[in-house]
């Protein structure tokens, strides 16, 4: 299974990059501390985005009334929770890759993730609008 082996290798490399910033000290030069702080704040902003999604999932699980479709409430909650966890992991990966790029004086890593997340949130909101309207019609 060379493919599986390669995936494991990539994941292992990423985890090493997250946890061993001292490894980074050997490459490039120490950047202006303000850039590192800005990078850290961006990471924290993404982490809060993830926390907000997790809070939404927890609120859906606890405060939504039972929905007409069986387990729909739980499905919504689990989706939000997993999305929040994904955002958190991606935040730390982007943080470490950006830190590395700053040290090496390379271009900052490009990412499709914000666009994907925005689309997912937009589609979710649209589905909720449809659900609310459908209920309003059926109640009448």
């Amino acid at each position, binding site marked *: 299974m060379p493919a599986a082996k390669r995936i494991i290798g990539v994941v292992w490399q990423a985890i090493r990059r997250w946890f061993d910033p*001292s490894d980074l000290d050997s490459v490039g030069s120490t950047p202006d501390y303000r850039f590192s702080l800005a990078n850290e704040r961006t990471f924290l902003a993404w982490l809060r985005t993830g926390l907000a999604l997790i809070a939404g999932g927890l609120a859906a699980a606890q405060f939504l009334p039972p929905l007409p479709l069986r387990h729909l409430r739980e499905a919504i909650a689990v989706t939000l929770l997993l999305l929040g966890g994904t955002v958190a992991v991606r935040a730390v990966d982007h943080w470490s890759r950006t830190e590395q790029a700053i040290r090496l004086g390379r271009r900052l890593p490009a990412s499709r993730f914000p666009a994907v997340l925005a689309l997912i949130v937009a589609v979710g909101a649209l589905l909720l609008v449809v659900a609310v309207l459908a209920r309003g019609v059926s109640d009448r």
Partner: protein
Amino acid sequence: MSGLPADGTGGRDPGLQPERTRLAWRRTGLAYTVVAVLAVRLALTGDVAGALLAGATVLAWWATLVVGWGRATGRRQSRLDARAVPLVALGTAGLALLCVSLVLRGVW
């Protein structure tokens, strides 16, 4: 004499970067607190497993606050300190998985 710069900032970074970073950690700690309260509320169903999951949640919350405190008070030179940043993110992801198990526990 090199002295202080004449821009009236007393030699501090005029962009207030450390202060902004400290406040960012504070905001994150507050958001984490909300999530921890909601998770503990979901976890406590009166059995041992629920108590353990609630305890794990409180532990993750406390660890995040401690790391944030360390980052915010400027002792950012130690190696352990920088390693704690990814731990906070992975702790958050772990908390999300813990919450998924809590929701699924309610289904069965």
